[in-house]
């Protein structure tokens, strides 16, 4: 790979760092409240304000506790909150580290000199906004407003999505969709007429049988689900885990199926075969609610456990036995759809298979299976109609990926490349709270797209790698320092939660809503911002549903009455929002679009000799790369290890803790080295690398160069033809014990 010319990381002055408080340089800094106080404060001496955690997407509501000097001392869960039940995960508990991190972005920065030059200058907010508005005008004149693309993530995203709609561009995408969960949503929409949303309405708490397929609850700390799984274990639920790795969930399971990677659909088809041909499926439910059973029965006739065994390497008796376990528990059974489902490029079909299995067991809409979540009908603050763009993400996406339900980041990237010469050019990137270098596979392409832009703006809290490519960097306040839109999510109990600032923003950082509004005004969009402070919006919205900002400030979370049933009442004639009004085992949508109406197993790439499949995943104390520099969370897991089976270690002569480099099938070598962990917990044909480590931004002083980033080894991307989702698990690595020569 060529040396990157445009790349430079911002220089950050040390003003504002708590330098004086450093007592032991090796441990970095100590927040002021940690100094010389042997007696922890009692909660009765502290002041609490409500928050909604922003360390991951689970968005747990909690309380921020401040001492009398105004220092944040801890964050805990709000007991009224159904996302957390009053208990945050380690990342939420350590969330205050985001606020105290001395490496935070501190003030706006503008690249000086010609584009591509290596220098930034500190700027005022006015200078930064003027610069951006001027450049956006130039892009508009040359290419139209649609050429300005927005990439966003998290709770700050909606402020900018609103700005984009007001501006007249719908050229936007959320990496969390096509890189993560869209295939699951579409797989379930095609089956049940509705997706799962977040938090997923799996009734794990009440289930008798939980089936996890490559879904590692306990390493992903999807808080409510982790709690629900514990509850289910306490109540004797059978857990079945399908994973090439002996995950933490596998450790808590009755059955572990160490499947050969990439063969899940074969297993799922065999399970369907057993349920149907051993006459175990829920006949009454299937007759009443589903469409296409006879097609399905014919389709899976030959997909016996013996057939699947040769593909998956699993014992056929184990396949049959686990299907019987599910049937025994039905309808109180959850075949969990997972969340990050962008694996092999046929992921919508795998999720369809999961949806179909749940239907055969009669689990959808039943206690212990899936419940129906409900949210409060909360009106939007009134605004003038948005401008209709001449083209949008849909124009460039849905011809090719017919079931895409949201913008696909990789499609926007394709339209940002210098070689793209069609009518839908992207010439400006506005990147909000997402480090695209790490979150999008094929880094080299992302970087070429970035370098072809007339303007790159990054809004972030930390100097993540993407900030090194920006023309303008805008420092956002952390969630502990800002208001955001109300959390109005679907759950068992409809509820609304408030995030409000516990403290003033540090340095010159500003809340996302303020940044979006100020830029909007610079762009002449005043009429879309008839309010000055977001508090006016929140209070207005809350008053529409009989509450107020004052009330939410006191309680943090407010519950509302449900208006629809939690489960399908027994015997009830339930209409499903599909073409046939039934659960579609045979998908009329997919067949009309030219895709397989029922899932088909297709063989995937295998590792070449000497290579191992790269499997990636999560550690419970980190939210991808967003927390590896958080001082509280960093020390829990400062680096990743590459998991290697003992047989492989013996073959290659590896030792525990040995530093190695990884090289993928395309000759891409990891930037840094990673330590080996020899463990029985992984198949001998695969290696495992937790995601989020190996940060390349030197400004992230704790996380820099600690371990290897899986993403840089994911150069082969398998696109799901139905949704455009990017499958990332067809990459293979070999292990290098010597430091490789620098690539040319």
């Amino acid at each position, binding site marked *: 790979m060529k040396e990157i010319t445009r790349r430079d990381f911002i220089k950050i002055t040390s003003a504002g760092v708590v330098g004086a408080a450093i*007592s*032991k340089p*090796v*441990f970095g*800094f*100590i927040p002021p*409240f*940690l100094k*010389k*106080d*042997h*007696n*922890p404060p*009692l*909660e*009765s001496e502290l002041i609490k304000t409500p928050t909604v955690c922003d360390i991951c997407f689970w968005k747990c509501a909690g309380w921020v506790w401040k001492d009398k000097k105004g220092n944040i*001392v*801890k*964050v*805990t*869960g709000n007991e009224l909150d159904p996302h957390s039940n009053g*208990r*945050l*995960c*380690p990342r939420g*508990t*350590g969330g*205050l580290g985001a606020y105290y991190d001395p490496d935070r972005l501190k003030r706006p920065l503008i690249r000086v000199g010609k584009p591509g030059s290596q220098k930034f200058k500190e700027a005022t907010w006015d200078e930064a906004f003027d610069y951006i508005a001027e450049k956006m005008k130039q892009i508009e004149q040359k290419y139209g407003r649609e050429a300005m693309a927005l990439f966003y993530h998290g709770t700050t995203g909606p402020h900018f999505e609103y700005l984009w709609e007001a501006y007249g561009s719908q050229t936007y995408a959320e990496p969390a969709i096509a890189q993560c969960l869209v295939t699951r949503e579409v797989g379930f929409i095609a089956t049940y007429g509705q997706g799962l949303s977040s938090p997923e309405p799996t009734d794990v708490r009440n289930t008798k049988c939980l089936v996890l397929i490559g879904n590692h609850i*306990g*390493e992903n*700390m999807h*808080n409510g689900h*982790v*709690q629900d*799984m*514990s*509850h289910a*274990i*306490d109540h004797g639920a059978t857990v079945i885990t399908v994973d090439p790795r*002996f995950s*933490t969930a*596998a*450790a*808590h399971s009755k059955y*572990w199926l*160490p499947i050969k990677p990439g063969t899940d659909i074969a297993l799922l088809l065999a399970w369907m075969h057993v349920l149907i041909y051993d006459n175990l499926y829920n006949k009454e439910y299937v007759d009443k609610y589903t469409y296409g059973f006879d097609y399905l029965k014919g389709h899976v006739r030959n997909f016996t456990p013996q057939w699947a065994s040769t593909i998956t390497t699993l014992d056929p008796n184990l396949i049959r036995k686990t299907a019987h376990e599910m049937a025994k528990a039905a309808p109180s059974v959850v075949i969990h759809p997972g969340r990050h489902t962008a694996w092999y490029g046929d992921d919508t079909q795998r999720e369809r298979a999961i949806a179909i299995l749940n239907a055969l067991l009669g689990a959808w809409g039943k206690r212990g299976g899936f419940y129906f979540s409900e949210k409060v009908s909360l009106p939007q603050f009134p605004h003038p109609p948005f401008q209709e763009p001449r083209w949008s993400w849909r124009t460039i996406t849905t011809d090719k990926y017919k079931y895409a339900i949201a913008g696909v980041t990789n499609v926007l990237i394709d339209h940002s490349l210098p070689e793209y010469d069609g009518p839908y050019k992207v010439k400006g990137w506005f990147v909000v709270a997402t480090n695209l270098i790490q979150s999008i596979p094929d880094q080299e392409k992302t970087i070429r797209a970035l370098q072809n832009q007339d303007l790159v703006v990054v809004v972030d809290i930390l100097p993540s790698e993407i900030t090194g490519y920006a023309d303008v960097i805008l420092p956002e306040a952390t969630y502990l320092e800002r208001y955001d839109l109300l959390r109005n999510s679907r759950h068992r109990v409809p509820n609304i939660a408030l995030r409000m600032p516990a403290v003033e923003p540090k340095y010159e950082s500003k809340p996302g809503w303020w940044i979006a509004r100020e830029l909007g005004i610079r762009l002449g969009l005043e009429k879309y911002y008839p309010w000055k402070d977001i508090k006016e919006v929140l209070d207005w919205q809350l008053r529409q549903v009989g509450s107020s900002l004052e009330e939410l400030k006191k309680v943090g979370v407010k519950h509302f009455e449900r208006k629809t049933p939690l489960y399908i009442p027994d015997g009830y004639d339930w209409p499903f929002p599909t073409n046939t009004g039934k659960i579609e085992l045979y998908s009329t949508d997919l067949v009309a679009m030219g895709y397989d109406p029922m899932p088909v197993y297709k063989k995937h790439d295998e590792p070449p000799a000497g290579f191992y499949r790269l499997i990636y995943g999560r550690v*419970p*104390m980190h939210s991808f790369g967003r927390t590896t520099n958080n*001082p*509280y*969370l960093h*020390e*829990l*897991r400062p680096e990743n290890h590459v998991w290697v*089976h003992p047989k492989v270690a013996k073959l290659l002569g590896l030792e525990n803790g040995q530093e190695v480099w990884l090289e993928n099938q395309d000759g891409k070598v990891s930037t840094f080295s990673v330590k080996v962990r020899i*463990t*029985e*917990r992984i*198949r*001998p044909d695969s290696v495992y690398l937790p995601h989020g480590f190996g940060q390349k931004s030197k400004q992230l002083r704790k996380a820099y160069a600690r371990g290897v980033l899986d993403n840089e080894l994911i150069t082969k991307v398998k696109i799901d033809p139905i949704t455009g989702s990017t499958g990332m698990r067809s990459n293979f690595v070999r292990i290098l014990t010597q430091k490789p020569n620098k690539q040319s």
Partner: protein
Amino acid sequence: MRYAMAVDTRKCVGCADCVVACQTENNVPFGYARDWIVEIVNGSYPDTLKVHFESRRCHHCDDAPCVRVCPTGASHIVEGGIVKVTPEECIGCGACIEACPYGARYFHPDGYVDKCTFCDHRVKNGQDPACVSVCPTYCLIFGDLDDENSPISKVLREREYYTLAPDAGTKPNLYFLK
């Protein structure tokens, strides 16, 4: 009153929430910890493999070797059997660190030996220790062994458990449920 804690290894996922919660609750400096996670792997791939996690901390032993060896009385036992250190009386000799079979003590950078207190400042107010109060798997159970109706007494009656270094004769009050 005899305080004890149990760790349900059937549920613990080793997420280390207990470690961060302790750190923020008790101002434990970066680089140190009063509690920690141990991952235990037994057997081999694929059929006999077993993994469990132990959330560990001071065992608040009935017969605490750290208290026996302390030359100044800084290490002492308070109500409920909680083993504590008075920072002002600690001379930092480290004898207690050597004596503890569980590695539960460390030198605080302010010049004294520090360790888990079972969050006695919270327990006095009827709250659970911070680690117990945050645990998302509800795998930590804390309470009074003298109260036979307490969840800890109940769970130790009903479930099989083990303790660490039983041969050391310390009579520990940290139990691991099988």
